[in-house]
């Protein structure tokens, strides 16, 4: 059975061109970039090229502002801990209720260490409450940490606006942006948005897993998380992961070239999938606003049926997607993102996220549109909420 992969917010396939670019650095070009002989220069130059590619990708002023790390989580931890440790007198942090767990769990740990953290809420469309954010900023605020787009809903936060209102209220407050879910989907411009730190992860835009990057605006005080050698200008010790750095550089170059395609073709396919499901399935509901979303993501709740069950049946038909249902994660709680948005319990447990990529084809979308109505109907018949479902069916006509 052919695989229909619609879970690109979880991870993506490695682009063939990316693989070809990195292979020589797994084979013949194995030198340590710190070595003095000219063989060492080969990998040193390769890293410089990749750093420039990432600089261009996020539109940083200087390639020195780019640090390579092993993941998005490491980038985020480096940024957050690095800023806080460099300015230990300030103990207040602001973030959002819908951040990725890699950031949220870190903040919960920091609360235990004595930091005060404010978590800003969102409305039912998933949009951030900017008034609440502005009010929360105080002289003691060391850091505001905010994702650019949400991994579950694809909702984009207005980073430029957020950055402006922070700097207007407290020019010393640093802003860290988790840009993992926008990389390769919409343009990133760290200068126009005036952010201080920004994290990306290679495997979300067709590089392999195990490589990330952090933009640190020059002049930003940052205490390193990993201490050791002089690599990454002393900000992140450890021999550079040359093949993966090369891969992410190439992936960034391709992602930038593909932005136009994302905004048009990927968006067209996403919209087709979304509209098709909402039109043909009576208990389907969009779990976010329509606008201000990355072009590849849709999150749909199927009322009165459970998400894991949908995913298991989709998997039997070769389709990969994900769910905000409690059961899939191994935790017993449903998605904190959808809960923060006030998605009703009827749809919360049956929420399915489809996330496309530039490799998604029209045929794949057509296939999902063809199988879903029957699949959902089968599961609807198992539900104990038949009266509610009948009512819903009547209302939707």
């Amino acid at each position, binding site marked *: 059975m052919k695989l229909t992969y619609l879970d690109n917010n979880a991870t993506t396939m490695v682009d063939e061109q990316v693989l070809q670019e990195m292979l020589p650095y797994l084979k013949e070009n194995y030198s340590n970039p710190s070595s003095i002989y000219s063989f060492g220069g080969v990998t040193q130059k390769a890293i410089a090229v990749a750093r420039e590619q990432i600089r261009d990708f996020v539109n940083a002023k200087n390639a020195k502002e780019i640090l390579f790390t092993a993941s998005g989580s490491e980038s985020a931890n480096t940024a957050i801990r690095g800023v806080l440790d460099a300015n230990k007198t300030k103990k207040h942090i602001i973030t959002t209720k819908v951040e990725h767990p890699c950031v949220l769990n870190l903040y919960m740990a920091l609360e235990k260490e004595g930091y005060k953290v404010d978590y800003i809420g969102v409305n039912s469309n998933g949009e951030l409450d900017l008034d609440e954010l502005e009010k929360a900023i105080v002289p003691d605020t060391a850091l505001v940490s905010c994702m650019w787009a949400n991994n579950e809903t694809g909702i984009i936060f207005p980073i430029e606006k957020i950055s402006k209102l922070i700097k207007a209220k407290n020019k010393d407050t640093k802003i860290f942006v988790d840009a993992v879910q926008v990389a390769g989907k919409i343009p990133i411009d760290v200068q126009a948005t005036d952010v201080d730190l920004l994290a990306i992860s290679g495997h979300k835009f067709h590089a392999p897993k195990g490589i990330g990057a952090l933009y640190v605006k020059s002049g930003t005080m940052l205490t390193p998380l990993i201490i050791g050698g002089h690599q990454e200008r002393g900000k992140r010790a450890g021999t550079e992961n040359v093949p993966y750095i090369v891969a992410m550089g190439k992936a960034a170059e391709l992602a930038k070239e593909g932005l136009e395609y994302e905004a048009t073709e990927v968006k067209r396919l996403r919209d087709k999938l979304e509209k098709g499901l909402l039109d043909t399935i009576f208990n389907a509901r969009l779990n976010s606003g329509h606008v201000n979303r990355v072009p590849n993501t849709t999150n749909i709740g199927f009322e009165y049926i459970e998400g*894991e069950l949908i995913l*298991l049946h989709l998997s039997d038909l070769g389709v990969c997607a994900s769910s905000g249902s409690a*059961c899939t994660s191994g935790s*017993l709680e449903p998605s904190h993102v959808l809960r923060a948005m006030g998605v009703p319990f009827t749809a919360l447990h049956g929420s399915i996220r489809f996330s496309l990529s530039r490799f998604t084809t029209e045929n794949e979308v057509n296939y999902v549109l063809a199988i879903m109505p029957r699949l959902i109907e089968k599961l609807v*018949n198992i539900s*104990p909420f038949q009266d509610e479902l009948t009512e819903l069916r009547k209302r939707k006509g």
Partner: protein
Amino acid sequence: MWDYTEEVMEHYRNPKNVGRIDDADAVGEAGSLSCGDALKIYLKIENNIVTDAKFQTFGCGSAVASSSVLTEMIIGKTLDEVKKVTNKEIAEKLGGLPPEKMHCSVMGHEALENALSHYFNEDTPEVTKDKLICTCFSVTEKQIINAIKENNLKTLEEVTNFTKAGGACGHCKDSIQGILNTYYHTEPEKKPVEMTQTQRVIKINTIIENQISPELRKDGGDIELVDIDGKKVYVKLRGSCSGCKNSTLTLKSFVEATLRETLDDEIEVIEV
């Protein structure tokens, strides 16, 4: 990915006995929509034998599989045999369930028990006597003790896997550990404390404000202390608690039970 057995997969792919029985002799329910799994079971009973059983389940693959296999296990059995079915047997019949999914088999068993108690016209377990431990998933002390007893559970994590209790906010983890300790007699019982009426009022107010109110606020509700008259505590439920169909359960199993536990076994909570 869950490591489901072939049996589990077969049962969620092609569940047996799905649907309702319109003229059922007994209907049982377990779980709720907000908790993420809910199950209804319908029984047809003739001459003390279950002649037909059907189910409807809102839940994950293992929840559907547990319900499906349970109906297969009980059709054709006498009521005495059916009464003896345990959650452990449901799980065994499926070739085992991942530890985190054992609560699905427990839920199946609870729905069956619920149906049988309806059939024998027994009152559903009296809520006033059964303390609500986990407010997130509405798990009572009795359910936890039953799960411990039936499955020989030793740790907090096991109790969560089997009952879901403590799996969300985690506030009841201490209470669960307390139940385990009591069950295995590892901790001495608390002694009741003597206090004056004023101390009592202050104490009750503190418990409501610090322990009870925060829990209710998480679900958009709240509670207000109106008056105290001897052992009678008058309260008002607010927000989404007022008019919620679970409010009696909340009042008795959570508010009253918490006050009884911490203060006095004879306290009665009355909604005004």
